[in-house]
Each structure stands twice: as structure tokens, then as C-alpha cells.
């Protein structure tokens, strides 16, 4: 029937068409289809590497199959969760949800305030129909029962109709409205939030300024002015490992912090316990080793000195890194790897057999020429582009040792641990959390609440009629009707 009416569209014109489209979009069926679409659309995001989670894997993808990768990239396959088509689905879904839920909420509010419908003429065909011999005060007892059990009642001449269980629809609506609240929280977070990463070596201080970050992302409606003032100095970093399985047991970064007011405080950051500064939280995300080296020229002038952060490659923290000395002429580069507990493997060469510094060793090859730092192409700090360079030497050092090569020397002074701090501000997260909790409450109410009506009427012959109607749980109504009948008879 409905479809036939909708076929007559041409007469309705543009406004009618818009109304038709709106009605289609906000129908339950469309909302459900969009929900399923959202789930399906997120599948590629879990199968393909994502740029914001694993940029290295994306680069690898491009290297292995450039044509395929280019096509995947054109379809936003490496940024699924910020892709236009993904956004389109969830924006449509939430418009649909709002259009579906809001009218129902108003309707429901009206219904809750309204009195239950009048007692129908024929109760015989309704659930649990019972005839009770009356003696006069049945209606009063029934009224008391309804009041005690929180029914809404409509008292009529010789009969009462009572209704209960709007809880279910209330919960249902609360659940869906909460989903909207969660999305509001997500949007606030992505518009006004920020997230940045900074690597600091033991002894260094991180100051919350845009320039202190190695990478920094803002929400669309915020900028570096929103960074609040605080600093974190890494005094020491302690990593404990299980000597049998080599797995990490605990990471603790001991820090001195300074807040906006200039209060100095000692603190510890652990993996599951971040520090909080106002609206920003500071997380311990990664760690590794930074060999401290000094590079001198042939007359002993220092060309480079300091810690160089190396990138861990395996669970025993074999790490790779590069020491770049642009001050030397010609420029020098040390393509290096570092092992905290050195062992020689006949196949793999230098390997680490334990993640702690038991027998640290720095291995490197020395390259001479142009580091390519002036080309403007951004470079990884862990690797060196050696296309314009020649290798002049190869060696390995233990802490405190020095290696002399033509044109200078390198001294491996010591090793310091480094940590990666993530600074995150998400002003929307409390909305999402409240939304989540309310959604759960609404869900429980909607799944376990049930709506029912009970009627009682004194017939002209003095007999009392009782019947009920349940929307979704007739077994529970039977039980309640039994109690009700007993109460009306005065047995309870």
C-alpha cells in the first residue's frame, strides 16, 4: 500500500521529493543498512595497513606493488577511517539516527504523560481473561495494586485501565540518543584535540611547545596556541625484564615535572599510568637506547657530540640508527646498529641476546661524501642515503672505546635510554564515556523492560472481569496477572 502511494511522486514536486528522501533516510531500515555498511566499510581498514597506525607498512606496500598501492591510495585504502566515503556513511547514519530517534522521543514523551487508553468493550479475547465473583471493593484493591506496582492508571466508571513498562521504549531511546552523544564526543575530540610525540633522552627536558615535538597533529579547529604550559624532565628510565623469557616486566620513567604555576614535582610515568597536566595527558609509549658518541676531526676538534636515538628492531632491542656529521668536510655518516647484549651469530652477524645493557656494542660503517641534507627531501633520522657517499671503514666499539679512521675518530662514550612521550588532549572523551555508560543503561532497560496493560471492570451482574495485554513478554504478564487476581480477590 505504502509503495503505491510513493509511486505518485511527480505530482508532489521538489519539496515532496525532498520530504520523500528525508523519510527514506530516517526510516529504521535505512539506519540499519547504514549501520551494516559502516561495519563493512571498516573491514579494509583492518586488513590494509593504515597510515596513522603503521606508516612503515604502507611504505612497504608502495615499494612492493606501486601500481596496486597507488590505486588503493586513490580510494583512501590507507586512510580508511578518515576517507570521504567512510565519513559519508557515518554522517548519513547519524542524520538518519537523529531523524529516526528525535520524533520518536517527542512522541514517547507525549505518550508517557498521557493516560492509558480506556478499557476496551470486549476483554474476553485478551490475555489471561479471568472472571472473579465480586463483593464490592475490588476496584479499590486493584487501584492499590496498581499504585504499589507503579502503573499509570485511568479510572473510569466501573473500571480501571492501567499501563506500565514505558521503561523499554525509554531505554531504547536513551540508547540511541547516547550513540549520538558518543559521536558528538568523537567529533569534539577530532576538532579540538591534539596529539604529539616527542623523544627525550635521560637528562633531557621536554617543554610543551610546538617545536619540542617530533610529530604533532591538531584538530581542525585548534592550533599551537592551545598548548598548555608544562615541562617534563627525564631523570632516569628503568626497564625490568624477565631473565627467563626476556619479556619486559615493567617500564618506569622517573621524571621531574613543572606545571603552569611553576610547581616542581617528582613523578613516575608507566605504561598504564599517564601524567595529567590540565587537559593534557602525557603517556609513556616507547623506549630504546641512545648511544652517546663524540666525533672528532684529525686534529681533535669536536664535530659532533651527544646521544643519538636508535630504533629498536626486536624484543632484545637490537637497534638501528645513524650518526650524521654534516659539520665534517667532507660530510660523514655512520650507518650503525647497537646491541645491548652482544653475541656473534654465524648467520645473522651481531645479535642481541638480552634487552638489558649487559655487553653493549656499537657497530658501524663509516661513509664519506654528501649526506643529502640540503636537498629538501625529508630524511629519516635512523637511516642515511648513501648514494652520494663512499664507505671508508667498518668497525665496532664497546663503551669507552675509540676508533681512528682517516680524517678523524669516533668515541663511543656511554649509552642512555630514551623514551617516547605522547602528549594527548581530547576534550571530547568525557562526552563519549558518558554516552557509552548511558548507552549501556539504555540497552539494559530496553532488553529487559516490557510493556503491558491490565484492565479490570465490574460487570453489571456484579462479576469482575480481568485481562491484560503484553507487548513483548507474555509469560511475565501471566505471572503478574496471577498476582493481580489474587490481590483483587483479597487473598494477599
Amino acid at each position, binding site marked *: 500500500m505504502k509503495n503505491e502511494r510513493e509511486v505518485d511522486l511527480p505530482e508532489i514536486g521538489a519539496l515532496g521529493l525532498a520530504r520523500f528522501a528525508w523519510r527514506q533516510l530516517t526510516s529504521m531500515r535505512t539506519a540499519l543498512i547504514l549501520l551494516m555498511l559502516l*561495519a563493512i566499510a*571498516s573491514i579494509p581498514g*583492518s586488513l590494509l595497513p593504515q597510515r596513522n*597506525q603503521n606508516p612503515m607498512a604502507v611504505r612497504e606496500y608502495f615499494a612492493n606493488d606501486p601500481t596496486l598501492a597507488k590505486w588503493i591510495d586513490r580510494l583512501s585504502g590507507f586512510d580508511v577511517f578518515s576517507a570521504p566515503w567512510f565519513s559519508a556513511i557515518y554522517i548519513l547514519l547519524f542524520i538518519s539516527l537523529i531523524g529516526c530517534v528525535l520524533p520518536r522521543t517527542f512522541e514517547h514523551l507525549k505518550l508517557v504523560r498521557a493516560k492509558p487508553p480506556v478499557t476496551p468493550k470486549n476483554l474476553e479475547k485478551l490475555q489471561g481473561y479471568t472472571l472473579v465473583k465480586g463483593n464490592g471493593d475490588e476496584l479499590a484493591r486493584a487501584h492499590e495494586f496498581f499504585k504499589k506496582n507503579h502503573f499509570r492508571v485511568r479510572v473510569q466508571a466501573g473500571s480501571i485501565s492501567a499501563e506500565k513498562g514505558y521503561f523499554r521504549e525509554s531505554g531504547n531511546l536513551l540508547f540511541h540518543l547516547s550513540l549520538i552523544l558518543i559521536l558528538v564526543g568523537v567529533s569534539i575530540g577530532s576538532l579540538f584535540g591534539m596529539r604529539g610525540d616527542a623523544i627525550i633522552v635521560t637528562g633531557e627536558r621536554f617543554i610543551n611547545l610546538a617545536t619540542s615535538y617530533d610529530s604533532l597533529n591538531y584538530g581542525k579547529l585548534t592550533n599551537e596556541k592551545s598548548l598548555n604550559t608544562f615541562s617534563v624532565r627525564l631523570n632516569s628510565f628503568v626497564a625490568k625484564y624477565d631473565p627467563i623469557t626476556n619479556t*619486559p616486566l*615493567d617500564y618506569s620513567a622517573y621524571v621531574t615535572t613543572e606545571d603552569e604555576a611553576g610547581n616542581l614535582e617528582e613523578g613516575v610515568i608507566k605504561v*598504564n599510568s599517564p601524567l595529567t597536566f590540565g587537559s593534557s595527558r602525557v*603517556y609513556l609509549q616507547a623506549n630504546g637506547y641512545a648511544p652517546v658518541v663524540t666525533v672528532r676531526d684529525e686534529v681533535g676538534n669536536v664535530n659532533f657530540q651527544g646521544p643519538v636515538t636508535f630504533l629498536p628492531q626486536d624484543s632484545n632491542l637490537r637497534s638501528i640508527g645513524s650518526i650524521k656529521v654534516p659539520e665534517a668536510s667532507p660530510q660523514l655518516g655512520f650507518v650503525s646498529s647497537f646491541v645491548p647484549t652482544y653475541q656473534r651469530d654465524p648467520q645473522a652477524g651481531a645479535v642481541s641476546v638480552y634487552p638489558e645493557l649487559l655487553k653493549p656494542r656499537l657497530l658501524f660503517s663509516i661513509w664519506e661524501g654528501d649526506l643529502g641534507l640540503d636537498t629538501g627531501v625529508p630524511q629519516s633520522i635512523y637511516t642515511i642515503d648513501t648514494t652520494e657517499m663512499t664507505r671508508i671503514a667498518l668497525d665496532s666499539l664497546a663503551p669507552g672505546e675509540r676508533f681512528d679512521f682517516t680524517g678523524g675518530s669516533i668515541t663511543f662514550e656511554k649509552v642512555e635510554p630514551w623514551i617516547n612521550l605522547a602528549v594527548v588532549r581530547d576534550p571530547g572523551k568525557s562526552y563519549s*564515556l558518558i554516552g557509552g555508560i548511558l548507552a549501556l543503561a539504555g540497552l539494559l532497560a530496553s*532488553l529487559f523492560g516490557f510493556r503491558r496493560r491490565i484492565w479490570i471492570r465490574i460487570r453489571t451482574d456484579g462479576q469482575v472481569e480481568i485481562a491484560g495485554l503484553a507487548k513483548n513478554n507474555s509469560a511475565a504478564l501471566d505471572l503478574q496477572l496471577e498476582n493481580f487476581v489474587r490481590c483483587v480477590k483479597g487473598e494477599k
Partner: protein
Amino acid sequence: MTQTTWAYLSNNFVYSAMGVFALSFLVHAFETAWAVKVPAGGADQQKMDYSKAEKAARIGTSLMILAFLLLLIGVIARGLSNGHVPWGNMYEFSITGALAFTGAYLVALRKHDLRWLGLFISLAALLTLGTAITLLYRDSAPLVPALKSTWLVIHVVAAIISGGVFLLSNVIAGAYLYLDSRERGAGRPAWATRLPALEVLDQLSYRLVAFVFPLWTFSVIAGAIWAESAWGRYWGWDPKETWAFITWVAYAAYLHARVTIGWKGRRAAWLCLFAGSTFLFNYVYVNVWGTGKHTYSGL
């Protein structure tokens, strides 16, 4: 007792539980076989003698309870062997998952006579434990720092129980589809005549999902709270999170389809199986081949 002794003890109890599950499987197989036996007098199913099958069902259930208890001790001993809740790797998830699954069955048994399902339940538990102990076994080890949180207990226990009940509901939906297709064809096979009516199976599978869907929702929310304190964001579309979301959406669609659109029977059962398979996929694929933040060293 040293930690290693606890670990050995745990292994022995898991092995014993497997043995008893196998026995329970055999007895349930006899239960099914005896139900087929037609007494002299013809194939009139109304007059069939089920007393032997009934006896077998009782023994099978007793064995199942015994296996559950043995497994429970195995899981607890595993926890004592490494000083934390036994949910640090996939082996531990699997044995706890099998425990939750059989537990859900035994609890459901108190209300409905599901003993005909015992054959599948014991087989599924046996397969899960077998896979766990042969392919997924890792020596008992301490937790990595990222897992050291109270939320591990809350988030994972909710996820494991949800998984157990989802799986049970799937088994019932599968049984529904099988019996339904048989009833459409030649009729129920003789051994299945004792099984509940299709409508009962249909309702039961729905009730289990409706009961456990809020728990699954809770598990996702608890995971998000934990992720906020461990990784600095409550939702990041990590593969595990993505598939948890897909499972959530699939079951949400299932509940909507049943409650709002009024789906029943075959279509609902297929949707239920689909939703359950997304959960299984999440467990197997993301843990074994995935790259996300939920993959911890060595499964």
C-alpha cells in the same frame, strides 16, 4: 609450591579435562545412537524407548561438569603459576574461553534441557583445548607492562564470557538450520526427535544473544577506557577494535532484525551465525596474523 609446579599442575588438569571431555563426547555419542535404536514393533517414534538414552545423557552431563571443574582448576593453577589473571596470551584466552563456553552451557542446562547439544559442546571444547595445547601453548610468563592493569580483568573477563555465550548461541542457531532443512525435506532424523521444537531453539538462540549483548557492549566500553589510559586514545581503529565494532554492529543488526522487523527462523539464524563468525575471525585472525596493538609477543 613453586611457580613451575603450579604450571605443571595446570597443564595436567587441562589434559585431564580434555580426557573427561572426550569421555563425555563418547557418552553423548551413545546417547544419540541409542535414541535411534528402534524397539521391536516398528518405527513408530511415539513408542520409542529412551530410557537408555536418558541414562547416557545423565552420565554425559556429569562428565561435562567434572571436565568443567577440572578445567576450572587448570585455569586457576595457570593464574597462580604466573601470579596474574591467566589472560596474558592466546593459550590462556583459549582455555578460559573453553571454560566460559562449557560454563554457559551448564548454566543454560539448568533452565532448558539442552543435553542433546552435549555432543557438540564437548567436541567444541575438546577442539578448542586441543588447538590451545598443541599450537598455542606458551610457557607460563609474567605480564608485559601494557597488560598490567585492573582493566585486564574487567575487559577480558567480559569479552571471554561474551565469546562463550555467542559461541553457544551459534551452536544452537546451527542446530536450528540443520533441523529446519531436514524438516523441510525428509523430516527430522530419528535421533533428533527428542530435540526441542524449532521455535524453542530459535527463541533460545535469540535470548542468549539478548542476554550477552550488553555484556559485550560493556567489554568494548571497558576496553576503550583501558585504551585511553594505556595508549592515549580510547578508540583508534586498531584491527582488534575494528572487528569488535563489526561484531557489535552485526549483533545489533541481529537484535534489530528480530525485535523491530520481526525476523525469525532461518534468516535470523543465518544472521546469528554471521555475527558469531565475525567474533571468531577477530579472535583468530587478529591474534595470529594481525599487526595491531592487541598483538603481544608470541600470541
